[in-house]
């Protein structure tokens, strides 16, 4: 296995290697531009996939890296979506600051919630996040004057991007805009994962008791991760608002919280790419299956979910990495 003849890499270089860009990653992001070149009819779907992928990636930050299970993450997606939408309705439709408004609003609420979240684990945590989600959803529902309630928020208008690119009917501007934002958030996440903070999160996931025994402030770490994840979920929500120019209560529904968890588990928890890959598989499958058989498509997702959990503990991305490892070794 390990070849003793080759001298081992110096420790810092060895760690740097783990963070290096792989060819598969570059190929992945190049492939993400393909819808524009080969499937213009699907630009809208591709945009939705990317937005949901970003949302799932933000969940991965707390679930996959810090081991914090949340069944209420849509609360932050929805808060971001509404904050951005309401700002636009009130006359501020500038897209980039719109994202920041959505992210900041979700992040602030996330900051408040993080004080509770960081104190619990396991089932209690699932229930708390779930409760938080219901709370926010109900609040949005009853604040009819502000959010439009069950009718959805109307009158959202997104200004031209950078004052120049109009959001066209075909969704070309929207697609590139979404891709750019998701990629930027991905870069940030990737950096975070390979930072000292990212290592601390993995430590908490692996063994929080031991973290205490090496003097770590677990709660502070979890709070910080939670706020960043809420911010990113809010940005994802704001992206949806800006590119669809409407917001519905669905954005902060429990269904969305459950779906994003399913997507992340399909794609692979703690794999960095699991969220985007899971979102792509889930949403393309939904698109295909619901053409054929709209009632039963969840049957296939259920089957796929069970198969992945049973056979691929690290999800589809984890499985692919393993496969890549085998092929790499066989090719040598």
């Amino acid at each position, binding site marked *: 296995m*390990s070849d003793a003849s080759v001298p*081992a*890499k110096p*420790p*810092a*270089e*060895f*760690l*740097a290697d*783990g*963070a290096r860009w792989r060819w598969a990653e570059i190929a992945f992001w190049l492939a993400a531009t393909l819808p524009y070149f080969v499937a213009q009819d699907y630009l809208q779907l591709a945009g939705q996939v990317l937005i949901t992928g970003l949302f799932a990636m933000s969940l991965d930050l707390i679930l996959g890296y810090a081991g914090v299970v949340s069944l209420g993450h849509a609360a932050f997606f929805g808060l971001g979506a509404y904050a951005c939408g309401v700002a636009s309705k009130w006359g501020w439709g500038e897209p980039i600051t719109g994202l920041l408004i959505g992210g900041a609003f979700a992040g602030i609420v996330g900051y408040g919630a993080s004080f509770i979240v960081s104190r619990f684990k396991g089932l209690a945590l699932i229930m708390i996040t779930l409760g938080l989600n219901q709370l926010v959803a109900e609040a949005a529902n009853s604040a009819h004057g502000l959010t439009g309630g069950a009718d959805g928020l109307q009158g959202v208008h997104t200004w031209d991007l950078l004052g120049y690119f109009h959001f066209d009917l075909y969704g070309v501007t929207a697609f590139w805009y979404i891709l750019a934002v998701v990629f930027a958030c991905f870069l940030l996440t990737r*950096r*975070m994962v*390979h*930072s*000292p*903070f*990212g*290592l*601390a999160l*993995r*430590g908490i996931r*692996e*063994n929080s*008791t*031991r*973290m*205490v*025994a*090496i*003097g*770590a*402030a*677990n709660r*502070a*770490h979890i709070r*910080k991760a939670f706020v*960043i994840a809420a911010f990113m979920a809010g940005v994802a929500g704001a992206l949806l608002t800006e590119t669809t120019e409407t917001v519905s209560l669905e954005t902060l529904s429990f269904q969305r919280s459950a779906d994003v968890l399913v997507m992340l588990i399909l794609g692979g928890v703690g794999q960095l790419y699991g969220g985007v890959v899971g979102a792509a598989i889930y949403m393309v499958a939904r698109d295909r299956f619901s053409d054929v058989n709209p009632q039963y498509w969840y049957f296939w997702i259920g089957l796929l979910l069970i198969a992945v959990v049973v056979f691929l503990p690290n999800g589809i991305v984890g499985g692919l990495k393993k496969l890549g490892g085998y092929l790499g070794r066989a090719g040598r």
Partner: protein
Amino acid sequence: MTAALLAKGLDKRFGSLVVAGGISFELPVGERCALIGPNGAGKTTLINLLTGMLTPDAGEIVLNGEDISRAPPARRVRKGLARTFQINSLFPKLNPLEATTLAVCERRGETGDFLGRLAARRDAVDEAYDILKSLRLDGVCRRETRELAYGQQRLLEIALALATQPKVLLLDEPAAGVPKEDSGELFQVIDGLSRQLTLLFIEHDMDVVFRFASRILVMVGGRLLLEGTPAEIANDARVREVYLGSAGHG
């Protein structure tokens, strides 16, 4: 001179079971103190009380002259009180290099940095590597912890504790599960640690205890039965009766 670690009247009960009853002792700086006692005597519980992982019902703990009785566990670590676990408590999917670097970064307060690269923290990484090297783990430090041999995992327990730069180190049966032939070697490594470091170690093997301890605490049924030098302990009739006689060579 102030003691490195001082315990005063520590009490702890689980329901009606007294696991710590009026425990008081003092460890001078640099002491190599063994804590012995039969299974279930409350040795691990005492470490949990000292480190704050359990809250005592009463009593006081003073580290280098500072009362830490009310400090949360992580703060006690940052003040210089570290421990290892009787049953391995490691990071299975981190490699020893990452795990030890993590401990070093925590000590230096660098883990809040979420935009810098871990690999760029050369000082921390090198320090971690040096610790691993001193415990002869440099050869395996790039593999996931769960793939390591059991004895190597025992050493990693110590490496993680050392990375916090403790003033007082509490070792809970460091050689637990290690074959008797190898435990001598493990204690040689422990014995080679800095003389500034104050050590309290739990150990069942009396040969090892007499070889490496400068002082011995004997615990039975949640109470300190007596303390003394190895020679005093070896000659004490009560110790022979309750400890050496029964569980000493089980």
